[in-house]
């Protein structure tokens, strides 16, 4: 069967089971958009290619399947660079297809030419420039394989226009052959035995659980392990929900804005069992002072993470789910012979009781306390609600105050910290999980970066709900200027009224609601929950002064955690 390169591409995507792609056409990718008309694949037309990338990320995180975006060459390819970098940092499987100028004109500064594979080399797991239409099925197959196996991540296929226009004889490769790509998935048995011994005899162990466990779909295995060992467990920003917050052993988020018990348990631990986490500086604070007494068992699919920041006494390369299962099998027979860690649990419990997250609940308002808004949205929705956040104070409060009971319910930009992530990512999440309510907790600054994708949401009938915590500031930066720059506020004021978020929402076909007084919060949320045929935007007027606590100041040791305003 003879196909054009473009037809072969679309057929290959169908073969990979792709149901949805996010994109926006243009010159170099035009041939690909024609066979798309005849395909079963749903295309969602975004308003900016950054939106396509983040939507694909949101889709991937909500479904566990790879997200796919198709854009044209040059400016479109550069517009999708941010989502690629974001997905690379947070290990999100993404397949991005970019158009490219004809092979005969590559290198001539042709119209809308950019060195896409060169630009994206360091922010993709791998990329391909296809120069022969016959390579298309093979490359697509390889691309999905690389994106979804090992440590997941984004890949990019650059497809010149003449290649998509030329013809090829259709085939579908039975298998992938990449001699240089063979991720280790099975952990080393000797190391796992060693790890089990250390776990059973530790006095102050902590599970330090990262996003890798979410990517490995390891929630069940983790839970079994925690139930067996009764070891206190922290879930990083990327891992929120992978162990239910209601689980008695769950301490919640560690790090710069983590709670006291999570931060301090790691500081005082004699053993850290690191599961799919990477010692991010936002977790460790000053590395030299991080968990100074702890031995480390580090389990990760990416060998380069082991020993990168912190030496591991027991490094184990492997799929974290598989290793957790093997570890469970090693530990189960030792049940009853574990060292008694109840004093340790008691100590941690006392920290939890003494230093919970707190804010001034008695404050009557207006303005609204942002934490209260989040708590109300939480309480008026069930645990199957997907929460997507932007980057800033609102993100930290969302992670702190939401109660996460399941994995893949919390979608945010952790590693890159990309403002503007939330609205498009929520669109992707809702497309992937139409059965779930999707709430965005966004900042006013973030919202302004990608809000136009709400036009996409309205047009495509993707009814997401957006709560803007409108504090009229680039709040997180304002907080740093207040605390570390003697309240010299430099370029952080945004204004609460400009833009008028309600009118803006309405202009984009959404329902717009403004909430100024605390008494209006519940009604607004309930109204938003009742609207299922279009997006809703609520402009919550929140307290400009409110800061995120606890806080470990940048570059400081986690021991120097600041609990609240009065400690400053």
């Amino acid at each position, binding site marked *: 069967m003879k196909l054009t390169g473009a037809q072969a591409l679309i057929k290959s995507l169908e073969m990979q089971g792709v149901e949805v792609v996010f994109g926006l056409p243009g010159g170099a990718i035009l041939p690909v958009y024609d066979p798309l008309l005849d395909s079963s694949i749903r295309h969602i037309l975004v308003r900016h290619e950054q939106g396509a990338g983040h939507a694909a990320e949101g889709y991937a995180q909500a479904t566990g399947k790879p997200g796919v975006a198709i854009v044209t060459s040059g400016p479109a390819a550069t517009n999708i660079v941010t989502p690629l970098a974001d997905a690379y940092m947070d290990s999100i499987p993404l397949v991005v297809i970019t158009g490219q100028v004809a092979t005969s004109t590559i290198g001539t500064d042709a119209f809308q030419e950019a060195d896409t*594979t*060169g630009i994206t*080399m*360091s922010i993709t*797991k*791998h990329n391909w*420039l296809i120069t022969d239409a016959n390579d298309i099925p093979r490359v697509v197959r390889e691309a999905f394989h*690389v994106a979804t196996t090992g440590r997941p991540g984004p890949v990019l296929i650059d497809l010149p226009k003449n290649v998509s226009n030329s013809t090829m004889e259709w085939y579908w490769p039975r298998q992938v052959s*990449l*001699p*240089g*790509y*063979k991720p*280790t998935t099975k952990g080393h048995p000797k190391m796992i035995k060693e790890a089990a011994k250390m776990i059973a005899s530790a006095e102050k162990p902590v599970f330090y659980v990262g996003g890798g466990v979410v990517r490995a779909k390891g929630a069940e295995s983790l839970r079994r392990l925690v139930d067996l060992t009764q070891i206190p467990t922290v879930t990083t920003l990327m891992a929120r929900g992978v162990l239910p917050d209601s689980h008695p052993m769950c301490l919640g988020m560690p790090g710069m804005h983590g709670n006291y018990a999570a931060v301090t348990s790691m500081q005082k631990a004699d053993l850290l069992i690191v599961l799919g986490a990477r010692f991010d500086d936002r977790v460790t604070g000053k590395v030299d002072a991080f968990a100074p007494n702890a031995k480390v068992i580090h389990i990760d699919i*990416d*060998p*380069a993470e*082991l*020993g*990168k920041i912190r030496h591991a006494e027991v*490094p184990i*390369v492997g799929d974290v789910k598989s290793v957790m299962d093997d570890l469970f099998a090693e530990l189960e027979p030792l049940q009853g012979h574990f060292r008694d860690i109840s004093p340790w649990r008691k100590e941690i419990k006392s920290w939890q009781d003494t230093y919970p997250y707190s804010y001034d609940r008695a404050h009557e308002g207006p303005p609204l306390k942002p934490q209260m808004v989040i708590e109300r949205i939480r309480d008026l929705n069930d645990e199957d609600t997907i929460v997507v956040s932007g980057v800033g104070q609102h993100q930290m409060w969302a992670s702190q105050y939401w109660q996460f009971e399941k994995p893949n319910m919390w979608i945010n930009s952790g590693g890159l910290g990309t403002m503007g992530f939330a609205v498009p990512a929520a669109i992707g999440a809702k497309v992937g999980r139409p059965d779930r309510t999707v709430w965005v907790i966004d900042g006013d600054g973030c919202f302004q970066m990608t809000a136009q994708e709400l036009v996409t949401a309205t047009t495509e009938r993707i009814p997401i709900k957006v709560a803007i915590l409108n504090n009229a500031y680039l709040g997180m930066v304002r907080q740093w200027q207040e605390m570390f720059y003697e309240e010299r506020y430099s370029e952080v004021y945004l204004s609460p009224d400009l833009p008028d978020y309600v009118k803006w929402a309405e202009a984009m076909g959404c329902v717009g609601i403004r909430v100024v007084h605390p008494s209006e919060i519940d009604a607004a949320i309930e109204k938003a929950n009742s609207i299922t045929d279009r997006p809703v935007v609520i402009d919550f007027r929140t307290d400009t002064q409110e800061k995120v606590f606890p806080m470990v100041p940048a570059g400081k040791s986690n021991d120097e955690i600041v609990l609240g305003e009065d400690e400053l």
Partner: protein
Amino acid sequence: MNQEGNQVVPIGGAIRTPNEFRHHILSVLVENKTGVLARVAQLFSRRGYNIFSLAVAPTDDERFSRITVVVDVETAPLEQITKQLHKLVNVIKISEIDPDEAVEYELLLATVSADAATRAQVIELVNLFEGRIVDVGLTKLTVMVAASPSQLDDFEALIVEYGLVELQRTGRVALQKLGKPVVKRKQLKGRVS
């Protein structure tokens, strides 16, 4: 000519061959495809590692190329470098070659002033290093020497005396020495310390 009294100051001689304690040789087998060298080179700069020298050519099997990289390991732990390199999809195998256990060779081409007075001396020097005269001009010679990097450093320090017009070195290629009872060629593939 860089000359102060009788003391010869070789051009960059002191930094030409890295200190044996700081450098490592990585022999990286890669797929022979477009852009692979760019990926390897970019990885080094992206992760803040310094490449001291680099030589690349296809192997006897055309599907593969071998990149011989001399790394300045003070810029990053070698283990991180090799692990990050392994993450490149086109990288097949990485061997760390211990400089003490390796045969290392490098090629040097130099154009030297050689008038009637010095020509014989230059030729003698080249002969001493088992090199060859590859091009002859009226007042200049172009010479070629293939030797170990440190021998080339010596040669360079001497030849500079006669007035160097141009000099180019290739960067070393290396293979493990043969016939050792214990082959100390560290296999780094997919393994952790």
